């Protein structure tokens, strides 16, 4: 309503010019009074009396002026500023109190802001393409890749997608531009760029004609590669580049996307890939679908659509596609992966820390308000409504909270940097967690909320002050209510601190248990790296076998080397190449999904020696197992138990589907934890088999050579042997490139990365909680002691010893602590169930952990009580009996 607006406008103008308004009104009243006086004089009164009567008839001038001021200005704003000034003065007069409060709040708010920055970066991140919620990532069966013919079927048969693309990545050597460099090449459908909103900086992206076999070879490169290798010259378009020995025409330059999304420097049309097995329906080659949903279609509808196509494919191709299902996740969900739950748990944990900080500050306020009671009583007596008093107190606490928030923000900036430095690689980047508006708003809102939270109870309590009682001299009884409130707060703090300590304890024990798991091989002193053979060798089976044979010989001859082996297919903690297989002496399974599925390792004879995997039975691969000899395979313990229970597997034959050959079992090895130490033992996950790498069929050799590693055991530190290994690789063929060096220990540590990270953060929070809770107990007991000096004096005068007083104080502290611990255990037990997914080897209700946390907390609490208790014993009865 416009009426309301004009009133506001007039009030604002009045407020700005209040002094003049007030003076004018005083004049107006003065002139009114004059006229009234005149009237009275005309009626016959004497001047003096006329004036007096006029004043009565007009009304109290001060009151009228006050009313006028309130009407014309912004009284709320006035009172707010008044309160603010008062609050600032109050804090300045009590710097110690203010400092402690602000620091306590800063710790709580700062920690929360730091975690929020992380959550903002990981879970709420801004994706750099339009309508990111319409972009979905499509896999087969929860994580498996999609074979190319199946993708073509999806393109033809689904109706929910505006754009659909398939992509996979591969490694190739770029040789035509300076030093040979290994590139991550992304093979993709033409729509890939459109889905992610990538527009070429120069030139163009692929057309659909170029996306088929036999089309002219073209590539698109990234901006950074363009600047690095081609000098950013516009003439690059139309030029050639040689990748893996083949020439491609560069047709476009695209901007760099942040590494965590789709890190590639070279893009190539996936439809052109000439690898023959690519067009078989059975193999996915790591290809992943990416699509943009049509406007108006929901994710659920798209999923239903995909699975309808899946059912129809399952019916058409019963051999490969039985039980086919697709999964579609939004891009955001698929890049967050499993990080959501632990991060949210951490956010909850740090929230508990803030609650403890609030309880501490509330206690401090309660203690202080005891001292301010007279002042407040006087204010109420002078006419301030209780509402005003509450507002004023809330202003004070809000000021404290905002100051705490400001300091907390500074702490958070520093803390966030520390968190990024300690985080597992790839999870966080420094830019992602930078201070931005959202984080600032979060901090401000949290500070205000905190202020209200810890301020409301003390304010309400203070406003309920009994004026009569307080203004009488020596009113002491009213402190009982405050003490009770303080005790309640402290007990809650202890309970929360116990919960956090228990949580941290559980995670620590889990990590410890994980480290104790036997990986099945000796992880120390193993160096692994990838060799990228020259194009000529890479495409030729026999040449590859010969090259690797020479390489292994050279590597084993190096000083400091114990043994070396080729590792095609997989290496523990990396890769997931699997093969379906079945027994030759039983009927072939009807459907592929019924056949057991094992991780395969194509190796040279020394592999067992490199890895120190135990050989349980029979023999391992030998040099005699060459490409011309009989095909052999070595299975692991898990396969023996699952597929050959109570039988002798050695001598039997199995058929390996991917390799399309049958092999005789010659030995049984132990089982390794390929997927990480904390994977639960599951027979199906642990099927592993080894074949001689020389027996890989020629037609697969070139393909598999791309994902092959070499593993070496060194006598000393594996890092020391790396340069010599590189030399050896070059010596065998100068066009080869060695890259991707890592040690098995690093891989193992890396697989533990997130677990360690969560543990570290939770431990820091538990530590903060412990610190704050013990400060809280110290404060309350200290206060108690101050209040009870009189009582102690009496006791000691009546014969109590110093140690009796000490025991009394400690007992009071212990009682608070024990109640808090009991509550903490009662509340913590169900709460720890939330952690159950993160635990390993311990139950959420582990008694040892809870007991340990309780003991630690109580010990620290008692220590905190000791200081005031000691002070109590120093009491001189003569002094205190006079003290009031």
């Amino acid at each position, binding site marked *: 309503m416009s*009426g309301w607006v*004009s*009133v506001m406008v*007039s*009030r604002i103008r009045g407020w700005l010019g209040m002094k003049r308004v007030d003076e*004018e*009104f005083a*004049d*107006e*009243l003065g*002139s*009114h009074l*004059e*006229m*009234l006086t*005149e009237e009275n004089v005309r009626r016959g009164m004497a001047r003096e009396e006329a004036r007096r009567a006029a004043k009565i*008839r*007009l*009304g*109290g*001038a001060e*009151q*009228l002026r006050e*009313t*006028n001021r309130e*009407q*014309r200005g912004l009284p709320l704003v006035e009172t707010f500023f008044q309160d603010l000034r008062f609050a600032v003065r109050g804090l300045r007069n009590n710097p110690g109190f203010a400092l402690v409060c602000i620091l306590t709040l800063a710790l709580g708010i700062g920690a929360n802001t730091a975690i929020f920055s992380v959550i903002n970066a990981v879970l709420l991140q801004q994706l750099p393409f339009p309508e990111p919620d319409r972009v979905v990532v499509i896999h087969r069966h929860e994580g498996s890749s999609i074979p190319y013919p199946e993708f073509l079927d999806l393109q033809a048969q689904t109706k929910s997608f505006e754009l659909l693309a398939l992509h996979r990545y591969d490694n190739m050597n770029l040789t035509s531009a300076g030093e040979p460099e290994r590139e991550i090449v992304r093979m993709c459908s033409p729509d890939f760029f459109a889905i992610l909103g990538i527009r070429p900086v120069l030139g163009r992206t692929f057309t659909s004609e170029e996306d088929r076999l036999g089309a002219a070879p073209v590539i698109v490169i990234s901006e950074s590669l363009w600047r690095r290798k081609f000098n950013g010259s516009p003439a690059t378009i139309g030029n050639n580049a040689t990748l893996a020995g083949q020439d491609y025409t560069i047709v476009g330059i695209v901007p760099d996307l942040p590494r965590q999304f789709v890190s590639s420097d070279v893009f190539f049309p996936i439809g052109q890939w000439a690898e023959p097995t690519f067009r078989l329906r059975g193999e996915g080659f790591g290809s992943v679908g990416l699509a943009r949903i049509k406007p108006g279609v929901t994710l659920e509808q798209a999923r239903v659509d995909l699975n309808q196509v899946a059912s129809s494919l399952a019916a058409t191709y019963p051999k490969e596609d039985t039980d086919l299902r697709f999964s579609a996740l939004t891009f955001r969900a698929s890049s967050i992966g499993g990080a959501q739950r632990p991060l949210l748990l951490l956010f909850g944990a740090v929230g508990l820390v803030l609650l403890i900080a609030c309880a501490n500050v509330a206690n401090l306020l309660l203690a202080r308000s005891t001292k301010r009671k007279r002042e407040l009583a006087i204010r109420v007596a002078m006419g301030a409504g209780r509402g005003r008093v509450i507002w004023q107190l809330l202003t004070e606490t809000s000021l404290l909270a905002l100051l705490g928030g400001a300091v907390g923000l500074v702490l958070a900036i520093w803390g966030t940097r520390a968190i990024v430095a300690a985080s597992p690689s790839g999870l966080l980047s420094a830019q992602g967690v930078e201070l931005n508006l959202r984080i600032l708003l979060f901090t401000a809102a949290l500070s205000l909320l905190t202020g209200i939270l810890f301020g409301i109870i003390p304010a309400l309590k203070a406003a309920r002050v009994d004026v009569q009682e307080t203004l009488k001299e020596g009113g002491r009884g009213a402190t009982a209510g405050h003490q009770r409130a303080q005790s309640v707060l402290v007990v809650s703090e202890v309970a929360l601190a116990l919960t956090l300590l228990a949580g941290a304890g559980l995670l620590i024990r889990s990590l410890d248990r994980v480290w104790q798991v036997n990986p099945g091989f000796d992880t120390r002193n193993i160096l692994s790296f990838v060799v990228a053979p020259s194009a000529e060798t890479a495409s030729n089976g026999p040449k590859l076998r010969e090259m690797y044979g020479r390489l292994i010989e050279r590597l084993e001859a190096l000083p400091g080397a114990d043994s070396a082996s080729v590792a095609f297919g997989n290496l523990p903690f990396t890769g997931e190449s699997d093969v379906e297989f079945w027994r030759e002496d039983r009927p072939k399974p009807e459907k592929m999904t019924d056949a057991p599925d094992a991780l395969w390792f194509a190796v040279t004879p020394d592999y067992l020696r490199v890895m120190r995997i135990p050989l349980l039975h029979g023999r391992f691969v030998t040099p005699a197992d060459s490409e011309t000899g009989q095909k052999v395979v070595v299975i692991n313990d898990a396969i023996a138990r699952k597929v050959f229970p109570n039988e002798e597997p050695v001598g039997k034959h199995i058929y390996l589907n991917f390799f399309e050959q049958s092999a005789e079992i010659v030995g049984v090895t132990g089982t390794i934890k390929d997927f990480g130490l904390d994977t639960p033992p599951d027979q199906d996950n642990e099927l592993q088999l080894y074949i001689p790498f020389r027996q890989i069929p020629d037609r697969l050799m070139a393909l598999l050579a791309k994902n092959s590693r070499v593993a070496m055991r060194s006598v000393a530190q594996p890092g020391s042997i790396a340069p010599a290994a590189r030399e050896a690789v070059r010596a065998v063929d100068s066009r080869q490139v060695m890259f991707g060096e890592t040690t098995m220990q690093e891989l193992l540590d890396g697989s533990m990365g997130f677990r360690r990270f969560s543990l570290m953060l939770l431990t820091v929070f538990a530590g903060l909680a412990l610190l704050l809770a013990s400060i809280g107990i110290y404060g309350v007991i200290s206060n108690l002691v101050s209040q009870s000096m009189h009582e102690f004096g009496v006791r000691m005068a009546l014969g109590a010893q110093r140690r009796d007083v000490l025991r009394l104080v400690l007992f009071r502290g212990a009682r608070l602590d024990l109640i808090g611990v009991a509550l903490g255990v009662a509340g913590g037990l169900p709460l720890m169930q939330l952690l159950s997914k993160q635990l390993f080897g311990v139950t959420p209700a582990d008694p040892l952990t809870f007991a340990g946390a309780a003991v630690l907390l109580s010990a620290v609490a008692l220590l905190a009580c000791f200081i005031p208790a000691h002070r109590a014993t120093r009491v001189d009865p003569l002094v205190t009996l006079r003290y009031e």
Partner: protein
Amino acid sequence: MGEGRSEILQGTLDLMVLKTLDAMGPLHGYGIARRIEQISEDALAINQGTIYASLVRLMQRGWISGAWGASENNRKAKFYSITKSGKKRLAAEAESWERISGVIGRVLRAERG
């Protein structure tokens, strides 16, 4: 009834001020108060000062405007006059009152019958 009464009183007073200014032309605070006292035959025994709250309200809504001028005795005084929107408001309120009093009148007469 106490609370409601002061609100009704507020509204009524505002209305009377508007009517006064409409009928009498520009007046100062004293003049308005005197006039209202006369018309209500002193039934509304309030302090004259309370009129100023009413004047501020009316001014903030833009229904009256104020300007300093000279009174009969050549004394400095602030004169208030009704504005165009004030006249509209007055007319609307008057109509509203007529309607209400008509309805109540009919109700009361019906009771007896």
